[in-house]
């Protein structure tokens, strides 16, 4: 490409609509300033003047200093139309839709997954019966890491931290009697590689049920950060190949399943692994931008692709920071889509997001405290304008949620939606001097970090070089020390510790025979399927991998033929080879 690769800063600086139309009258601001200085000198104590700005110490927080009080002086040039706009109009700071939650309530989408597909199917129905408005399924370790339930490496781990899925047959069982053409499903396939295997199995199952692809709605995670940076695993594919698979997934899904969100840019897992509220957004945006560039280079129109772009954020404890950052992310993404990518469709500018309240912030000690933490986190994300929520359950530090804990998480969302009236008004925090100043500051810092990633050569390069791994490791090693010392206060853990006997909570017990059942099913599958056809589709997949074709149609053929996940992963490994992430301790 002959074109100069412009830096993100230069692109964003050049954007201009109209000149700054400050909300505040200059004369009045002068009066306010005079009074403010008097007040600061006479009413505010010396200690407070000295510590005018403090940095809140919260888990997974940003370093952003906060002033004692915010006034119009802190946003003197605030231009309502440029900085905010109304909801549903550029730059979408106030929300992606004009009527926000009055028009479309946030989706209550709690994660479920344990045992075999028949077990999780029951829990999905339970959640729907109790008011869940969206479904979300998470997979067990063997399925996540792409090994079959009968693989020796999977022994003892089938169904213990998610649902076991080995083939399209399991996907059929998982969604048995669930109206896939009516309810949206988040299929938490973390990685591009397991998305490329499991999502086609889901599609094959839908086909069997006669549901056309254009009736399906939902999400896959499909994020390179998750596969290469923030997970531990025995085998990794190289970052360039994983990114290619991510884009193959994006392309295929966008072209064939029109109502499907092809990636929820991460986001949550990286943040909860240990990084700041700013880095989380910067890395996700860097990935999203590089993805768009890749898909545009494949010949696609940016507005076509952007229609189904979505993000996935962690929500931690710093209440106003969490609400402000969602607003900052919306505004910045809008600018990026318009000025870097030249998106013509307003919808392309929407930073739609699913959020999950932070698991890391939930303690093992006094677990009921976690209900309170998750509630505040959920509220912050609603005030920030998120599209859908998962509220982490109070038994997070023990096991996957019991039915009771899962239900309480759902109720937390329902109480916010039905009882607090916060959803009656769009962007209720808009106009707060503090929140607007914080939103501005967060946006600046995201741009700074985007520039850092740019300097590394981009998102994939930053991963290949180990730069991102090291950045995250530095953050969480430092933060852990603060959590242990009490510099980050955690009630019941490092402050307000109680000596009282703790009431035991119920902890979930995994169905113990899931492994047996899955192994039986695989045996039966391999006996009854056409094994010649299996050999052929695996060979075709390998060719596609090696010749740069989009591999998803070939994976779909595998799913239709009854190929197991482990069998597909073996082809990916032999096609791309393995990679070792940098050691970071």
């Amino acid at each position: 490409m002959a074109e100069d690769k412009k830096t993100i800063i230069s692109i964003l600086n050049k954007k201009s609509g109209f000149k700054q139309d400050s909300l505040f009258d200059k004369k009045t601001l002068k009066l306010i300033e005079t009074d403010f200085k008097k007040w600061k000198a006479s009413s505010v104590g010396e200690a407070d003047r000295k510590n005018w700005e403090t940095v809140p110490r919260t888990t997974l927080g940003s370093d952003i200093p906060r002033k004692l009080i915010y006034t119009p002086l802190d946003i003197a040039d605030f231009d309502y139309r440029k900085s905010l706009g109304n909801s549903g109009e550029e730059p979408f700071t106030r929300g992606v839709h004009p009527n926000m939650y009055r028009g479309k309530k946030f989706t209550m989408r709690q994660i479920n997954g344990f045992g075999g597909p028949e077990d999780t199917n029951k829990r999905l129905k339970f959640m729907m019966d109790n008011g869940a408005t969206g479904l979300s399924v998470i997979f067990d370790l063997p399925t996540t890491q792409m090994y079959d339930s009968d693989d020796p490496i999977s022994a003892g781990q089938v169904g213990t931290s998610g649902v076991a899925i080995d083939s399209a047959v399991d996907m059929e069982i998982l969604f048995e009697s669930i109206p896939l053409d009516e309810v949206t499903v988040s299929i938490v396939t973390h990685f591009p590689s397991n998305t490329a295997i499991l999502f086609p199995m889901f599609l094959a199952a839908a086909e069997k049920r006669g549901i056309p692809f254009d009736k399906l709605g939902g999400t896959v995670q499909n994020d390179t950060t998750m596969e290469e940076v923030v997970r531990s695993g025995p085998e990794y594919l190289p970052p360039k190949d994983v990114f290619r698979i991510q884009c193959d997934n994006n392309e295929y899904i966008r072209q064939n399943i029109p109502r499907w969100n092809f990636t929820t840019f991460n986001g949550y897992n990286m943040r909860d692994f240990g990084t700041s509220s700013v880095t989380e957004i910067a890395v996700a945006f860097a990935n999203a931008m590089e993805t768009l560039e890749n898909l545009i280079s494949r010949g696609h129109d940016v507005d076509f692709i952007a229609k189904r772009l979505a993000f996935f954020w962690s929500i931690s404890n710093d209440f106003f920071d969490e609400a402000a950052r969602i607003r900052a992310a919306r505004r910045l993404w809008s600018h990026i889509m318009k000025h870097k990518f030249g998106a013509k469709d307003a919808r392309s500018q929407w930073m739609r997001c699913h959020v999950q309240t932070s698991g890391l912030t939930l303690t093992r000690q006094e677990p009921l405290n976690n209900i309170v933490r998750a509630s505040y986190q959920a509220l912050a994300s609603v005030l920030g304008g998120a599209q859908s929520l998962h509220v982490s359950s109070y038994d997070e530090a023990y096991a996957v949620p019991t039915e009771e804990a899962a239900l309480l998480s759902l109720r937390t969302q329902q109480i916010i939606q039905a009882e607090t009236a916060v959803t009656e008004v769009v962007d209720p925090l808009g106009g707060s001097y503090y929140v607007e100043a914080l939103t501005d500051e967060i946006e600046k810092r995201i741009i700074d970090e985007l520039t850092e990633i740019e300097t590394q050569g981009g998102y994939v390069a930053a991963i290949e070089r180990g730069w991102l791994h090291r950045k995250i490791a530095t953050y969480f090693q430092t933060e852990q020390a603060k959590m242990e010392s009490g510099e980050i206060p955690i009630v019941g853990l490092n402050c307000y510790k109680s000596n009282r006997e703790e009431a035991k909570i119920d902890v979930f017990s995994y169905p113990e025979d899931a492994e047996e059942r899955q192994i039986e099913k695989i045996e039966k599958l391999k006996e009854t399927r056409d094994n010649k056809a299996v050999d052929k589709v695996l060979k075709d997949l390998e060719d596609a991998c090696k010749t740069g074709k989009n591999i998803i149609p070939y994976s779909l053929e595998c799913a239709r033929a009854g190929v197991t996940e482990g069998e597909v992963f073996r082809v990916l490994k032999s096609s791309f080879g393995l990679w070792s992430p940098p050691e970071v301790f």
Partner: protein
Amino acid sequence: MEVKIKVLLAKLGLDIHNRGILIVAKNLRDAGMEVIYIGNSTPEQIIGAALQEDVDIVGVSSLGGAHLSLGKKVLSLAADKHIRDGKIYLMGGAIPEDDIEVLKKDGYDAIFTSGATKEEIINIIEGLVKKF
């Protein structure tokens, strides 16, 4: 010359969560121990490495729910190889209270859960090493 305590650390099975073990690895190394981290490993690989590296301590990390199934396997393989009694066995992770009791009865010398601090872990390890 002081001999360094040699510690083998591993993720038990296929568990994807490694923040905790990376923190522990760094802390133990900073405390002067020799740390060998082998990432995701089967019980067979863990015991194999423990033998080969002739470590003093074997520490496994499990947040994926396989602490009983694979945790027990580690100890029984250790017994098979006659290194059950000569080494210290530790586990860390997301482990329900009842299971902690089971694992301790099986022979884990200490179990660490969420909230365990660097100080606690090092003190307990040094205490166990002294007893040996």
